[in-house]
């Protein structure tokens, strides 16, 4: 594409095309968007985060990531759409403008680059990282079981051949460690939203324990508002609740760690669909999925802006 206006948001893209898109976006909006490299993957690919900022120094920030499970293609595709939407709506949409006038938005579109490249080159069904495990022929760690929150407890596998293999130790995956270091160095992230597919769920901590999160009532009410906003566009129904109550016990997961870091507004999305196509969601559903999800994201971001802590 010669510009982000001619880029097609209604199709799936390769890693190179997504990285080219981010460079185009930064070039078109140098006052608003910058690209930060937070590390390199196991196979040496750069890991990028887009920072949307209208100024200030280390402002309170909202983190959004997509694609931590590489086969969940609608999430990276939605992340591209979100990036463009932010640049289009700043100065136009009063809610987003208010958010960006006081806060930064950090967006990591391809959170598992090695796995994503592998879904394009070799195995479309690949979910994990591509790291090697000593003593095993099986490859990869589930990056959503590798965080230091209940790590090693039930809700993840110790078998390197399992799709939910947690890794030898917490943060063993450089794709995870890079985010951990960035979040801890930044120190002022107020909301953390990690986007998966599928099942149409909006989840909040905890996944590793059935002990309710200290502010689970507030999270539940915010989740309800967010899924209501989402459904207002096409009527897409989401279920919401804590991870362990809504799906199953999942130890070492992202938002349990971010919540335990003090990031109160920590959520996991599971986008479309509920199980007709699953990970193979047709590209025709990318834009509708991104549009409805954006309404939920705006609800969470606006609430975060209006409830500083």
């Amino acid at each position, binding site marked *: 594409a010669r510009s982000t206006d001619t880029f097609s948001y209604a199709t799936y893209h390769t890693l190179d095309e997504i990285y080219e898109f981010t460079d185009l976006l930064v070039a078109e909006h140098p006052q608003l968007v910058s690209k930060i490299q937070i590390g390199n993957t196991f196979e040496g690919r750069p890991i990028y985060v887009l920072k949307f900022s209208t100024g200030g120094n280390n402002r309170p920030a909202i983190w959004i990531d997509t694609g931590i499970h590489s086969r969940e293609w609608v999430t990276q595709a939605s992340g591209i759409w979100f990036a463009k939407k932010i640049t289009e709506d700043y100065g136009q949409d009063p809610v987003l403008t208010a958010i960006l006038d006081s806060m930064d938005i950090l967006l990591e579109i391809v959170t598992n680059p090695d796995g994503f490249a592998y879904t394009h080159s070799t195995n*479309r*069904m690949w979910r994990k990282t591509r790291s090697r495990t000593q003593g095993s022929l099986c490859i990869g760690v589930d990056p959503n079981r590798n965080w230091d929150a209940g790590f090693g407890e039930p809700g993840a596998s110790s078998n390197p051949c399992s799709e939910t293999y947690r890794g030898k130790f917490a943060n063993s995956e450089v794709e995870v460690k890079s985010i951990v270091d960035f979040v801890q160095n930044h120190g002022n992230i107020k909301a953390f939203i990690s986007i998966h597919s*599928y099942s149409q769920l909006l989840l909040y901590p905890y996944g590793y324990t059935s002990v309710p999160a200290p502010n689970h009532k507030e999270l539940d009410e915010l989740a309800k508002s967010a899924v209501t906003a989402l459904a207002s566009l096409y009527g897409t129904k989401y279920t919401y609740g804590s991870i362990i109550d809504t799906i199953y016990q999942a130890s070492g997961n992202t938002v349990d760690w971010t919540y335990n870091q003090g990031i109160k507004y920590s959520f996991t999305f599971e986008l479309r669909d509920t*199980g007709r196509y*699953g990970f193979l969601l*047709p590209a025709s559903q990318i834009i509708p999925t991104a549009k409805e999800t954006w309404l939920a994201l705006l609800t969470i971001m606006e609430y975060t802006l209006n409830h500083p802590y």
Partner: protein
Amino acid sequence: NKNFVGHQVLRIFAADEAQVQKVKELEDLEHLQLDFWRDPAGAGIPIDVRVPFLSIQSVKVFLESHGISYEIMIEDVQSLLEEEQKQMSAFKTR
């Protein structure tokens, strides 16, 4: 690219905890090469699993012999992948 001809995705409905445990037993049989898209969580929560062609017969027999109901969510994974690739290359051509 890995080929998924004949792979099916089954949606399994475990009626109670005993049936959930039965499905979990399948998960441990590595030779079946099952890929759980939605893990066994609890009774009444759908379980989605991609089953390679060579394992389909034995998995279906197992489920039916234990009275565990299921439906076929995706008849042939490869045909959806080819559709996806066709769409992407059509876009590139345009």
